[in-house]
C-alpha cells in the first residue's frame, strides 16, 4: 500500500514535469527522454561516425546543411551554396549571428578548420568525402570557398551535422584533436547544450537559449538514456519512460507489438534513406571452398530472403535483387539481376552445384565451411542458423562461429581468416560512398574495416567504378552501374541478402522529429512534445 | 524412606526403531536421599546416561522417551508434569554437569553470562546482584580471580576450570539433586581429584543429593555412598559402596571389579642387557614457524618434548606416564618418525633413524610399529580389515599370497574370526578394532611396539582383555614395548619400568615398583596421590 502511494507521488511529479505549457500547436517545454543504444564511448562526432554518437552529436553540433526526405538540402549553418561551372570551386555563405555554446561567434575560420584540420584528418569518412578539397579560402567571416582538384558532386551529400559536424576552432586548435577535452564536453552551435553525462545512465542536454533559429528548440531538455537489455528497452518504451527509439533500439518484434497494443506508440521506417543498410554474406574469394563463383551463386539462389525478412525482421525490409539497394532506383542506378530469387530455389541451387561437378557424399555433403556471424545480436545469430540449415539442403555443411566484436573484426578485415561471413553494410546515399568500398581492388586494405574483405579484384570492374565516380551525366552513370551490377551478379564476391529497414519507435506525443532525411541523426530543433 | 528426594520406580526408556535393543533402560528402580551420593556404574551402552537425562526430561524426543514407570521427585511425578514445571525444576531443583565441559558450555557466551541466565530464569534479582552472585559462585568453586573469569569465554579456561565453572552453574540455586554425568572422565587425574573433592565439599554444604554416573570404580570407591551397577539397561546390583565393591553378588559386578587393574605393581622381570632403542636428548617444539606469505609475528612456541633421553631393553615394557600435554604422545610420534624431532638422536640397531630420509626409513619401519589410542579413528572406515593388515607386508615387499597368509595368521593370534578379512571396520566393536590395530602393527614382525594409550578408550572389561593380549604377544614375539598411558593402574600392571613426564620433560625414571613405592619427584608423588580409589583394594 505504502509503496503504491509513494509511487503515485513520484509519478505525479513526473507528470507535472512533462505537462508544462498551454495547449498549442507547437508547445514549448518538456523533457524528451530517448534511447541511445549502446552507450557511446565519447561524443566526438568529428572523430567517429558510430551510431550512438550520431544520435547525440547532431543535437549539439550543427552541420552546414540538412537534407529533407526527398534529399533536398536544407540550409543550416550555411545559408546557401554556389558551385562554379567546372565544379571545382564551391562557395558557402554562412549564417550570421551564430554563436557557440560558450558564447564565441561562429565564423568561416571554424568551417575552414573543421574541414581541413578535423574532417580531412581524423574523421573516418571525411578523407573520402573531402578528398578533392585542396584548400579553403575565407574572404570574410561569413564566406567559405572550397578549392577542389576535381569535381566532387557527392561531397554535397555529406554536409549534415552527422557526417560533417562543424566544430569550434578555438577549442581544438593546437590540441591533439583525437584526445581533446571537447570529446567529453562538447561545445557546438546546435539547439541543445551539453549538461551532464552520467556514465552508464544518461547524457543530458539542455535547451540552447541563444540558438540562431528563432523560437527553437521547443523542447527544454533532451536526455539520451542507455538501457543495455533489449526487453527492458521495450518495457521502458511501453511505460512511457522513454519516448523515442531509433535504429532498432526496440527490436522489431516488440516495436510491432507496441504499435499494435498501445495507442500512444507508433513506428516508422522514415529517416534511414541516407543509410541504406544491406544485409549480405562476404566470401573469401582467395582461399577456401568459395573461390568458385558458381558456389556463391548457388548460395544466393538457395536462400529464402523473404522468409528471413518475415521471420527475423518481422516483415521490415526488402529482398535484395542486385548488388545495389533498390533505393538507388530513384537515381536510376538500380536494376534487378538474376540469382536473387526472393523465395529461394533450393532445387535450382542444387542443380547448379551438380552441374559444376560438386558431388554429394553419402551423407549428402558436398563441402564443409566455417560461417562467421556478425556479433550484433540474436537476430543475426538466428539468421545464421537459418542459412546453416538451407546450406545443409544444398550439401554445404557449415559450422557457425559467433565471436565478440574485436575478434571478429580482426578475423575478417585483418587476418582474412574466414570463409564466409554474415554482415551488413551501409550503402549510404550514393554507391560511391557506400558500395565502391566493397568491390574495388584499391579497397583491399588489410586492417581497414568494412571494405573489400573478399579480396575480389577485377580490373574491368575497377575501371567501371572509377568512371561511375566521376560521371556527371545521370543516364551514362546509370549505364555504368548496370554493367557493374551485371558483373557482380555473375561473380558474386558478396551475396546481398536483403535491404534492411530500420524501425523508429516513438511515443505519439513527440512531434516534429521526423522531417529530416537524417532521421534520428538530426538536430530535433523542430521537435516538440504534446500532451 | 520418607525423606527420599527421588524415587524412580519401574521406568522403561524406549529406543528408536531399528536400534540394537528395544529398551535403553528397563524396569529401573533407584532412590536417592539428601546428602547422599549414589553412583551409577556401568560400561558404555548400559543406559546410565539416558537414565540421567530422563530425570531432567531431556531425552531426545520423540524417539527416545520414558514409556513406563514413575520418577517421583519430592512428591511430583516428573514423567507427568508439564514442560513448564519441568523447566522450573531444571537448573533450580535438579541440575546437571556433563563429561566434556568444552562442548557443554556455549563457546560464544561468557561464563558470567551463562551463569546469569539461571538467575534470570528462576529468581528475580537485579543485574548487579546477579553478577555479584556469579562472582561469588565462581569463588566458591575455587576459581582464581573470579571477577575476571566471569567475563571470560570457555575457550580461555583450562579443562578443570571449565568443569569448575559448570559446577558453579549447576549449584547456583542450591539444587536438591545434582546429576553428574562422568564429570571427570575428560580430566587429568590430579584435576579429577580436585573436582571430586569440590563436589563432595559442595554437597556437604548444601546437603545435595548427588547422582554420579561413572565407569571408574576408583572414583566410586572415593565418593559413593551407595552404588547401582547397570548392564544392558538393567540395574543388576545395588547396595552400599562397601557391599558392592567388596562383596559383589552379581557375576557381572564381580567381573567388572576383577577387571580393575590393581595399583600394586606386578612383579618385575629380569632386565635384558641388550638395548634395542635409545632416545638421546630429543627435542621437539611446536609453533614459531613463520611462513613465506604471512608477515605477522611468529606464533607461540611450545616445548612439547624437551631433552628427553630414554633407553629400551629387549623384551622390556617401558611405560611413559604423564597427564595431558606432558608431551608423551609427541615423544611416541618422534620415536616412530611420524614427526621429525628438532634435535637429538633416536638409535635403533645402532642407526640414528633421525638422519634417514623417507626412502631410507622405509625398511626400518618394519622394526618399530605403533598401536594407537582411538580404535575408531585408527582404522580407515573405507578399507576392509584384510587390506588394512595386509598392506604393511606388501609395502615392505611381501607377495600378495604371503601377505594374505600372514594376515589370516594374525587374525587368529589377536583372536578374531578369519571372516573379518572381508569386513569393514564399522562392523566391529571397540575392543575388536583395537585387536585389528594390534594385528596391523604385528604384521611387519616388529621388534619394538609403541603403544599410545592403547586401552584408554575402552571399557574396563575390554581393557583387561586387550592388556592380556598385549602381554601374551609380547612374550610370544619377544617384543620390546614403549607404553604410553595416563592411567597409573594400567601402568602398574603392564610396565617393567616407568618414565614420568611433565611439560615435555622426564622428571623421573625407574623400575615400576620402585617408583610406586618411593617416588622421588614431587610431581610423581602428586600423581600417585591423585589416583582414585587408593584406599580400596580388591
Amino acid at each position, binding site marked *: 500500500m505504502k509503496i*503504491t502511494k*509513494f*509511487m503515485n507521488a513520484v*509519478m505525479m*511529479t513526473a507528470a507535472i514535469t512533462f505537462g508544462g505549457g498551454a495547449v498549442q500547436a507547437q508547445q514549448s517545454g518538456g*523533457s524528451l527522454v530517448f534511447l541511445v543504444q549502446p*552507450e557511446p*564511448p565519447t561524443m566526438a562526432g568529428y*572523430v567517429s561516425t*558510430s551510431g550512438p554518437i550520431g544520435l547525440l552529436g547532431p543535437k549539439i553540433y550543427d552541420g552546414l546543411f540538412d537534407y529533407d526526405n526527398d534529399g533536398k538540402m536544407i540550409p543550416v549553418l550555411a545559408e546557401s551554396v554556389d558551385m562554379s561551372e567546372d565544379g571545382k570551386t564551391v562557395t558557402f555563405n554562412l549564417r550570421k549571428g551564430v554563436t557557440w555554446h560558450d558564447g564565441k561567434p561562429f565564423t568561416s575560420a571554424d568551417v575552414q578548420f573543421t574541414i581541413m584540420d578535423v574532417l580531412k584528418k*581524423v574523421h*573516418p*569518412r571525411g578523407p573520402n568525402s573531402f578528398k578533392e578539397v585542396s584548400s579553403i579560402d575565407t574572404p570574410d567571416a561569413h564566406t567559405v570557398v572550397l578549392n577542389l582538384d576535381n569535381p566532387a558532386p557527392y561531397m554535397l551529400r555529406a554536409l549534415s551535422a552527422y557526417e560533417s559536424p562543424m566544430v569550434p576552432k578555438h577549442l581544438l586548435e593546437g590540441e591533439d584533436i*583525437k*584526445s581533446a577535452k571537447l570529446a*567529453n564536453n562538447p561545445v557546438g552551435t546546435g539547439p541543445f547544450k551539453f549538461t551532464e553525462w*552520467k556514465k*552508464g*545512465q544518461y547524457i543530458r542536454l539542455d535547451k540552447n537559449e541563444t540558438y540562431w533559429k528563432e523560437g527553437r528548440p521547443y523542447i527544454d531538455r533532451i*536526455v539520451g*538514456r542507455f*538501457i543495455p*537489455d533489449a*526487453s*527492458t528497452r521495450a*518495457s521502458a518504451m511501453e511505460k512511457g*519512460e522513454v519516448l523515442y527509439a531509433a535504429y532498432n533500439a526496440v527490436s522489431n518484434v516488440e516495436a510491432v507489438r507496441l504499435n499494435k497494443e498501445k495507442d500512444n506508440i507508433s513506428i516508422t521506417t522514415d529517416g534511414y534513406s541516407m543509410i541504406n543498410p544491406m544485409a549480405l554474406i562476404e566470401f573469401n574469394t582467395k582461399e577456401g571452398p568459395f573461390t568458385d563463383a558458381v558456389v556463391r551463386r548457388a548460395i544466393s539462389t538457395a536462400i529464402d530472403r523473404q522468409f528471413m525478412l518475415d521471420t527475423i525482421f518481422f516483415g521490415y525490409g526488402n529482398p535484395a535483387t542486385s548488388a545495389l539497394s533498390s533505393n538507388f532506383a530513384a537515381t536510376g542506378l538500380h536494376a534487378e539481376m538474376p540469382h536473387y530469387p526472393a523465395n529461394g530455389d533450393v532445387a535450382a541451387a542444387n542443380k547448379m552445384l551438380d552441374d559444376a561437378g560438386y558431388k554429394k557424399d553419402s551423407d549428402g555433403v558436398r563441402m564443409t565451411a566455417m560461417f562467421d556471424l556478425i556479433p550484433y545480436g540474436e537476430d543475426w545469430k538466428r539468421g545464421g542458423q537459418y542459412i546453416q540449415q538451407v546450406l545443409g539442403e544444398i550439401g554445404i555443411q557449415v559450422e557457425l562461429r559467433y*565471436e*565478440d*566484436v*574485436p*575478434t571478429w*573484426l*580482426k578475423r575478417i578485415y585483418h587476418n582474412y581468416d574466414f570463409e564466409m561471413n554474415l554482415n551488413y553494410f*551501409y550503402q549510404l546515399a550514393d554507391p560511391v560512398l557506400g558500395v565502391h568500398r566493397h568491390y574495388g581492388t584499391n579497397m583491399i*586494405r*588489410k586492417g*581497414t*574495416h568494412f571494405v573489400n574483405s573478399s579480396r575480389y579484384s577485377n580490373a574491368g570492374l575497377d575501371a567501371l567504378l572509377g568512371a561511375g565516380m566521376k560521371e556527371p551525366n545521370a543516364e551514362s552513370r546509370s549505364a555504368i552501374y548496370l554493367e557493374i551490377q551485371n558483373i557482380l551478379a555473375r561473380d558474386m564476391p558478396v551475396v546481398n541478402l536483403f535491404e534492411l529497414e530500420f524501425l523508429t519507435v516513438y511515443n505519439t506525443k513527440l512531434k516534429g522529429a521526423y522531417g529530416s532525411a537524417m532521421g534520428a541523426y538530426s538536430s530535433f530543433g523542430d521537435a516538440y512534445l504534446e500532451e | 524412606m520418607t525423606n527420599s528426594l527421588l524415587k524412580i520406580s519401574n521406568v522403561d526408556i524406549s529406543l528408536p526403531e531399528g536400534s540394537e535393543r528395544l529398551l535403553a533402560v528397563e524396569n529401573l528402580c533407584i532412590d536417592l536421599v539428601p546428602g547422599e551420593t549414589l553412583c551409577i556404574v556401568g560400561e558404555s551402552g548400559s543406559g546410565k546416561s539416558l537414565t540421567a*537425562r530422563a530425570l531432567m526430561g*531431556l531425552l531426545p524426543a520423540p524417539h527416545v522417551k520414558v514409556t513406563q514407570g514413575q520418577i517421583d521427585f519430592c512428591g511430583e511425578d516428573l514423567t507427568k508434569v508439564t514442560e513448564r514445571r*519441568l*523447566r522450573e525444576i*531444571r*537448573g533450580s531443583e535438579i541440575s546437571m554437569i*556433563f563429561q566434556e565441559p568444552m*562442548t*557443554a*558450555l*556455549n*563457546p*560464544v*557466551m*561468557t561464563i558470567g553470562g551463562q551463569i546469569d*541466565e*539461571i538467575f534470570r530464569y*528462576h529468581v528475580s534479582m537485579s543485574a548487579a546482584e546477579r553478577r555479584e552472585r556469579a562472582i561469588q559462585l565462581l569463588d566458591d568453586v575455587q576459581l582464581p580471580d573470579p571477577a575476571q573469569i566471569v567475563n571470560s569465554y570457555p575457550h580461555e579456561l583450562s579443562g578443570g576450570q571449565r568443569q569448575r565453572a*559448570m559446577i558453579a552453574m549447576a549449584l547456583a540455586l542450591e539444587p536438591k539433586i545434582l546429576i553428574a554425568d562422568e564429570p571427570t572422565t575428560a580430566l587429568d587425574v590430579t584435576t579429577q581429584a580436585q573436582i571430586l573433592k569440590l563436589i563432595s565439599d559442595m554437597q556437604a554444604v548444601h546437603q545435595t543429593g548427588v547422582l554420579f554416573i561413572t565407569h571408574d570404580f576408583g572414583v566410586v570407591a572415593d565418593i559413593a555412598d551407595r552404588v547401582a551397577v547397570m548392564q544392558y539397561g538393567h540395574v543388576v546390583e545395588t547396595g552400599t559402596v562397601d557391599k558392592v565393591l567388596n562383596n559383589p553378588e552379581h557375576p557381572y559386578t564381580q567381573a567388572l571389579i576383577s577387571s580393575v587393574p590393581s595399583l600394586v605393581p606386578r612383579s618385575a622381570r629380569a632386565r635384558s642387557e641388550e638395548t634395542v632403542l635409545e632416545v638421546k636428548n630429543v627435542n621437539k617444539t611446536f609453533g614459531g614457524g613463520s611462513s613465506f*606469505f604471512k*608477515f605477522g609475528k611468529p606464533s607461540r612456541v611450545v616445548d612439547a618434548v624437551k631433552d628427553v633421553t630414554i633407553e629400551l631393553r629387549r623384551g622390556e615394557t617401558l611405560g611413559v606416564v604423564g597427564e595431558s600435554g606432558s608431551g608423551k604422545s609427541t615423544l611416541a610420534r618422534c620415536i616412530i618418525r611420524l614427526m621429525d624431532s628438532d634435535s637429538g638422536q633416536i638409535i635403533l640397531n645402532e642407526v640414528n633413524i633421525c638422519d634417514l630420509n623417507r626412502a631410507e626409513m622405509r625398511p626400518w619401519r618394519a622394526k618399530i610399529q605403533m598401536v594407537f589410542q582411538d580404535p575408531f579413528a585408527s582404522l580407515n572406515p573405507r578399507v576392509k580389515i584384510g587390506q588394512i593388515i595386509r598392506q604393511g607386508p606388501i609395502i615392505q615387499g611381501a607377495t600378495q599370497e604371503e601377505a594374505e597368509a600372514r594376515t589370516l595368521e594374525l587374525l587368529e593370534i589377536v583372536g578374531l574370526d578369519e571372516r573379518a578379512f572381508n569386513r569393514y571396520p564399522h562392523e566391529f566393536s571397540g575392543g575388536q578394532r583395537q585387536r585389528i590395530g594390534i594385528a596391523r602393527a604385528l604384521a611387519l614382525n616388529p621388534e619394538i611396539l609403541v603403544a599410545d594409550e592403547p586401552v584408554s578408550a575402552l571399557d574396563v572389561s575390554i581393557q583387561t582383555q586387550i592388556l592380556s593380549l598385549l602381554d601374551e604377544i609380547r612374550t610370544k614375539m619377544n617384543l620390546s614395548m614403549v607404553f604410553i598411558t595416563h592411567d597409573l593402574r594400567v601402568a602398574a600392571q603392564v610396565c617393567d619400568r616407568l618414565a614420568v613426564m611433565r611439560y615435555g620433560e622426564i622428571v623421573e625414571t625407574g623400575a615400576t615398583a620402585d617408583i610406586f613405592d618411593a617416588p622421588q619427584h614431587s610431581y610423581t608423588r602428586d600423581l600417585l596421590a591423585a589416583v582414585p580409589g587408593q584406599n580400596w583394594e580388591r
Partner: protein
Amino acid sequence: MQGIPIILAIVVMNFFLLNLAEGDAVDVLAGEAGSATPEYMEKMRAKFGLDQPLPVQLAVYLKNVVQLDLGYSFRHEMPVHELIFDRFWATLLLMTSTIILAVGFGILLGLFAAVNLNTWKDALISVFALITYATPLFWVGLMMIIVFSIKNDWFPTSGMENSAAFYEGFDRVKDIAHHLVLPTITLSLFYLALYTRMMRASMLEQYGQDYVVTARAKGLSERRITFVHVLRNALLPVVTMAGVQVGALIGGSVIVESVFAWPGLGMLAFESLFARDLNLLLGIFLLSSVLVVAVNLVVDVIYCFLDPRIEVN
C-alpha cells in the same frame, strides 16, 4: 595486507588473458566508426601505447597502479578512475542492499524454518528457497519488470534515477531508493535462498550440540535457547559464506545490471571487455578485487565480534 599480492596477481593474470584476445581497442573504435584507414589506426595504436611490447605495457601499468593511477581509457577519453568512480557507488549501493536483504531475510527465514521444523511453514520456506535458487536470475528480472513495472505501475523499469525529472536532495534519495527495489530483490533472491538453506542447516546442527542440552538442563525456555544460544553460533558459517560470495555477487550482478540498466561496474566490465578497453577493465578487476578483500575484512571483523574464539589481529 595479504590481499595485495592477490590483487596484483589478478591484475597480471587478466592483463595477459586480455592480451591473448584477438583485436584491440583501436579495432573496436575503428569498427564502430564505420571505417578508418590503416595509417589512422596505427597512429591511434601508437598514441595508446599499444605498439609497445607486452612486458613494457604491463610494467607501465603496474608502475601507475602502485602510484594509485589506474591509467587512461582511450576509448572514453577519460581517466579510468573517473569512469569507475560513479559506477563504483552504484555497485556498492546495489551490493550493500542485496547483502542486507539476502543475509537478513535469509537468516530470518532459515531461523523460522528451523524453529518450525517439519511443519508446513518449514516446508513452504524450503520450497520457496529451492525454487528461487533454481530460477535463472534474468528470468526473475524480466518477470519483475513485467509484473511490477508494466502490469502494476509500482516501480520504474530500469535505471538508477528518473532521467526526466532530475530530482534534487531528499527527493533524489527517494527516487534512487525507488529504482533500487527491483534490482535488489532480483539479485538477492538467489542468495536469499542460499542463506536460508544454510541458516536452516546451521541451526539444526547447533541444536544438536551439547551446550544446548546444558541450556535445557538450566531450565531455559526454548525461545531463549534458540535466540540467545543457538542463533549466534548458527550465524558463524552463514557469515563466512557471505564473505566468500561477495566475489560471485559482483560478477552475478552483470545480468541484473543489464536487465535493469543499473549503472554498475559489472555492466561496465562487460562493455569494456567487448571494447578491449584494457585499462578500464583492469581497473574494474582491480577495484572489485579490492572491494572483495575489503568486504572480507569486514566479515572477519563481524566474525571476531560473533566468535570470541577468534582473536583480532
